[in-house]
């Protein structure tokens, strides 16, 4: 009868995290562009890994890998964002592992940066001129001092049901 209400949820949306209107993001880079995802979604940050190719999978699916006994599906964020694939086979690529409804996905990016705590005041919605695909995968933009940080909408990024229809 007594419902136990979890104080925090592990993979919850980033609103829970906002302490005094600040949110924390793990930043990462692809082609020099900075992206961020809410820190609470991140399980692990991995260096280069041995990845098993999955034949017939969508091209954005780089393969699967073993993370401490769990099978993680690797997504090449570059290809997902329709950026050119890396020439040198992504040997030194890094990955951010996120948990989506109990399934683990590793998002392969060029490199992973620091964790930033950002005030909501600097948050803006996507500019309408942004590529529709990027608008689909981004919740908004943070204005940093010398850069813009694109916040990735992880659930959408991993929702392949729409792209299959394309």
């Amino acid at each position, binding site marked *: *009868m007594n419902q136990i209400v979890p104080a925090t949820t592990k993979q919850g949306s980033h609103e829970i995290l906002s302490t005094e209107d600040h949110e924390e993001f793990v930043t990462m880079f692809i082609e020099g562009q900075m992206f961020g995802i809410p820190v609470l979604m991140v399980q692990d940050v991995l260096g280069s890994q*041995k990845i*098993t*190719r*999955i*034949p*017939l*999978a*969508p091209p954005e*699916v780089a*393969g*699967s*890998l*073993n993370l*401490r*006994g*769990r*099978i993680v*599906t690797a997504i090449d964020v570059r290809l997902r964002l329709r950026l050119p694939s890396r020439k040198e086979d992504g040997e030194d690529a890094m990955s951010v592992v996120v948990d989506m409804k109990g*399934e683990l*996905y590793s998002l392969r990016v060029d490199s992973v940066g620091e964790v930033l705590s950002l005030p909501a005041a600097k948050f803006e919605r996507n500019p309408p001129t942004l590529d529709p695909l990027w608008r689909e995968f981004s919740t908004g933009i943070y204005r940093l001092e010398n850069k813009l940080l694109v916040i990735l909408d992880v659930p959408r990024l*991993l929702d*392949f049901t729409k792209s*299959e229809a394309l």
Partner: protein
Amino acid sequence: MDDLLSEFLTETAESLATLDVELVKLEQNPEPKILSNIFRLVHTIKGTCGFLGLPRLEAVAHAGENVLGKFRDGELHVTPAAVTMILTCLDRIKTILSHIEATEAEPEGDDKDLIAQLNAAAEGKLHLDDPAPAEEPAAAAPPPEPEPVVAEAEPAPVSQPEPEPVAAAPAQHQQEHEPEHEHEHVPASVPVTQAIVPAAPSIANEVPKESAVAAQTIRVNVELLENLMTLVSELVLTRNQLLQMVRGNDDSEFATPLQRLSHITTDLQEGVMKTRMQPIGNAWAKLPRIVRDLSVEMNKKIDLQMIGAETELDRQVLELIKDPLTHMVRNSADHGLESTNERRLIGKPEVGKIVLNAYHEGGHIIIEISDDGRGLNIARIRQKVMANGLATESEVEQMTDQQVSQYIFRAGFSTAEKVTSVSGRGVGMDVVRTNIEKIGGTIELKTQQGRGTSFIIKIPLTLAIVSALIVECAGERFAIPQISVLELVRTTANSEHGIEVINNAPVLRLRDRLLPLVSLRTLLRLGGDAEERTETFIVVTQVGAYTFGIIVDRVFDTEEIVVKPVAPILRHISMFSGNTILGDGSVIMILDPNGIAGSTGEIVGGSQAATETAAARDLHAEDRQSLLVFRAGGNDLKGVPLALVARLEEIEVEQIEHSHGKPVVQYRGKLMPLVTIDGSFDVRTEGRQPVLVFADRERSMGLVVDEIVDIVEERLKVELSVDQPGLIGTAVVSGKATDIIDAGFYLTQAWGDWFGSPEQEFQGENEGKRILLVDDSPFFRNLLTPLLSVAGYEVVSVDSADKALSLREAGDTFDAIISDIEMPGMNGFDFAQAVRSEGRWAKVPLVALSSHATEKDFERGREVGFTDYVAKFDRDALLQTLAQSLSAKGAA
């Protein structure tokens, strides 16, 4: 103590604990969901004690269940007093249980008082709505007993002397634990409880003690086991790494301890694996006893057969299907099978059969429960559906029997004439289905009036361990479930049995057969080196009835793997049934032979098809046929089974003569009528005219065609049927839509028109003989019916064995029966058995018709009662066999 009994005690103790909580919940919030849960728990307790031979317990539970039933039907309201009643009933059950635990027998005495109260309550005679004592806190577990009720019952000789007070006393308290607590909170109720729990008069003074039985097993959260499993996997990986480091370094001081670590790790891994996997036989262990007791109680002879008890199942899954299985077996025994007398009267073997069969198939575990009893009473279900307002009369009319039978999965649906202690309350099939669907399974039902019912439960293998063959192709490794692998063939570039190619389709001569091959490289678009390899391996794989080879580069050994589902974004790829982590830590995809077979265009039959063992598998081999593709009367491609064509001829146009305005040609000393596909007679005016010659005994017929295109081997599947005479339908042949012509139509056209009515003209001895043709394929029915008619037989054709048997039931008689072997539902062998076993057809000649006629098939066919066995396309043989069988019968 008897395993069965101790399990019952453990289970029931758990159920009772749940019931206490649930009842209190119900009191606060009378939701149907809670109520049905309570009802089910009590029902289960009652049911189980029935089988264990615990009449006293059963009687109490039955009475309690009656009251709950009234709640459920809305005839009684859930009031505190009523709940108290039920709790009292539970307390009594606990008391009896604790006695059973100590002595393995029910205490003497009876519970008439309590049962009388409960029955009175069920009949609504007691005023359960009486306000309970005012001070009663709503949430307290057993609220004080409504005094009047108890008082009324008091004069009955409630407190019987305890038969073995000393022995019984220490163990009584497992079940008293709960009430004990409650007493602390509600001290007022103590004397009352004592009064109504006479078998345990001294509870209040005893120190509660853990039940000995309950302590033997513990329940562990599966998640914990899952975590353990993950940890062990990691440990294995680390161990492997360490071993790698020490390898080649034999004098290392780490070698010995590492060796030990390695062993322990392996044992640990196995141990943890074992905690999750159990043979399904564990869930079946108590069934023989249940069936035995039932057979005694109901005076039926029952033979329970259990096949595949060693099939391993994830523990969690096993737990969830255990109750449904028990329930279904119980149902089969109770409702399914007729009584021995009844069976004798209708000519069935006296001993009824219940068969449980479990096996792995194509990434699933299939469990079948079948009986050879009376089958579902579809008519009754229809009535019941209407009576319960689940569908209108017209809706019910339109439903097929199959659809109607699905209603038994609805909650509260029972067609049992009377509620027996065994079943018939309508708890059951809905719960069964819910439980199975909870684990992602499906349940199918097949029933046949008078022949029995079978349930097919299909549970996904996602949690199961399978042994898999690891293969490599284009540098990638894949696992193929060992269960579908028949054999491995190694071919080298210069070996005598190399891979041959027909129009890009690779095949392999394997013994006496041509094995279709699938290149994994092509199928999975792996790319890589297409150049000739010096050696390749072929994994001969079987899916249902279809056997094919998968071409791979290398074959490693087999490994036991834990199948894990693929990520949702990859589920659409039908080639994979899951993925797994190998011993070396790498992730590997598990190939799904079903998916691969499907992608090669092979249509895989339903799961039921594979129930028959190897013998049947041989028969189910693929139905490929050679088709002659030609053009005639237009540009469309037309096709006809090559086996029907006697010869291909080219006739000099000058030789074509006319008789009665119709073209004929002298052919082998006889006149052969020529028929055109569209009835117009514009044959070529010069040169040579291609003709397909169809021959039957002395008669031939020439079908005039424009061009013979090709001869292809194809699985013939008529996709579109048309109503046009002369056409069976359209099939895809070599990727092109091709009209399949009805040779029979042209045969009758030529002969019918030309020689008059065939019945009068020839085969006089066959005149009026009635033949029953049983074949599921419309193609063959269309083909054979005219053929047989032409030969002078009167033909009735049906598309299934069931329909044939209903003809028998309807009183039809035939001179001979021709039956296909491979048919959905009842196959030819079963059909033959059914025909032979009883009824007016028992002596009728029975000819089997199959596309595969091997010695083994003949053998089996004769065993089950077929008179003869004929290959499907051998028309002459068929006619000959028929004539022989009929004359043999006449002589007999």
